[in-house]
């Protein structure tokens, strides 16, 4: 189970989350997004970048509400709302966006 990026092999788990978080690159994000049938736009990148920054500081992904509030601040209410987040990431901004951002899958009753 691995992604192929620029001749490199990046391992992932059964669900497509990368095994070594340090393997992440923007090119890898594009490859993961492709397997998720998502075409990365500026809005997608805003979410992915915020997730990565948040993870850098807190070692965990933010609550969906925290994510949406941050995106609302940076990109306005047309993008920073729950409905639009699900349009960007149909399988949910938490799990699907985390996968593309190279972060671990949120676990638990979520």
């Amino acid at each position: 189970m691995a992604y192929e990026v620029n001749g490199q092999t990046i391992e992932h788990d059964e669900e497509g989350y990368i095994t070594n978080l340090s393997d992440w690159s923007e090119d890898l994000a594009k490859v993961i997004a492709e397997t998720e049938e998502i075409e990365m736009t500026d809005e997608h990148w805003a979410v992915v970048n915020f997730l990565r920054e948040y993870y850098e500081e807190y070692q965990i992904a933010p609550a969906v509400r925290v994510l949406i509030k941050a995106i609302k601040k940076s990109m306005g209410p047309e993008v920073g709302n729950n409905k639009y987040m699900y349009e960007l990431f149909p399988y949910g901004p938490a799990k699907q966006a985390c996968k593309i951002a190279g972060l671990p899958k949120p676990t638990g009753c979520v």
Partner: protein
Amino acid sequence: MAPLDKNDASGSSADKGAADASSPDPLEIPRLSCGAMADLHSFEAAPEHNELLGFPGELLPNWKEVAIAKMGELAEKNRAFRVYLDTCVKCGACTDKCHYFLGTGDPKNMPVARQDLLRSVYRRYFTFAGKYFPKLVGARDLTREVLDEWYTYYHQCSQCRRCAVSCPYGIDTAEISMAAREILDSVGVGQKYCNEIIGKVKKTGNNLGLNPKALRATLDDLEEDLLDDTGVEVKIPLDQKGAEILLITPSADFFAEPHIDGLLGYAKVFHSAGVSWTLSSYASEAANFGMFIGSYENMREVAWRIRQAAKDLGVRRIIFGECGHAWRVAYSFLNTLAGPFDFLDQNYPIPQHILEFTLDEIESGRLKIDKSKNDDYVMTFHDSCNVARGAAMGREEGGQFEVPRKVLRAVCNHYHDMDPDTIRENTFCCGGGGGLLTDDLMDLRIKGAKPRMNALRKATEEHGVTHMAAICAICKTQFSKVMPKYGYGMDRIMSVHQLVANAVILEKRETDAAEKPVAEEST
């Protein structure tokens, strides 16, 4: 078990039991579809997940001997388990009670058939007739195929116990399912979803893996939202020593929707009641997946964190937030697992449910309510299985059914129950309970939600019900994922305390008045 196995003739109708919103009868018995779910194999745990829980990392070379010995040990130690295996008379009362059977049509999801997967092996090794005349009594050898079949079908049981209510002998399939998973774990075959999560609780105190710094940051963010929305400084304290109440709530309440709205509801109720309360970063989880895998040791270790947190923080009361199986563990087992709680205030229930607290506040008139704030919703209530059939609430029998309904009726003008055969002690599982709330079981989750969704559809058609409230983190997540498959928006599932939060009228206390300039600056 051969007659129930997959065959080509019936295999083609495998999708007959799939999600079909056109059928409004929640109790409709599907056409049998042998083997429909035989290939569903939830991801297995990695060795490190198993080892952290005290299990072998991988399948043991002598797994067969270990599994049989474990079964014998369980039958010896747990008299109920032995009685359940010995007693079934095949009356058939349970056959149409399981939501997974109703949703998939797979006959091995009939409770009696699920029990027999284990019972047939028990007979072979632990009964006279099975030892000498196995074929006569449906006894079979433990083989690798049987082990795999256990894994497959005991991870298609949400341990909801609806079948146990209908059994004239009270045989509890959940106990058999828990035992099966414990046997599987003991030979090195664990389930990824449950075992990884229990490991996270051991490391970080919660299922999510949320560290104290991240938890505090999330709570700060929510406090900011509360201030923006209400103009009142409602706090969500963390690790506050000397607080009166320790709130133990599922970590999904810090992360997911609509769970977070429930957390804001608890905060508003506590604020309004004027009590001091705190969350704990050490015991930042109500859920206890140790129960799902039937592991007493793991269940005890998780429960023990709550006792430790209560002692360290010096609280006098413990209150549980909205989490179904957590309330079963708390109400039914906590004292055995982590008691005695003689250091808490004995004048209050130990532990108490947040709904009991809220109802007391409402009935005493201390909590001011504006029901019209919820006039956009026509509500119904989904009884969570572990609350309905595994615990109690309030001061009267059946309180676990009445207390949530009383609260809902107190905060909403429009409330209707669903079909009586699908609520209270007959409630259907949401389809994601018992350690099955994982994406790799999504097909099962969607199909298993069918009876509940059909009951909701009926309530929508008959009473115009628009939204459903629940008091379980698993139910809430499950419904937000599967409701869209049945024609409802994901926001149609709500937390009970979300509705409380909408309706509660917050009065500014003196401390708020002193800090008023802060509130004004931020609005």
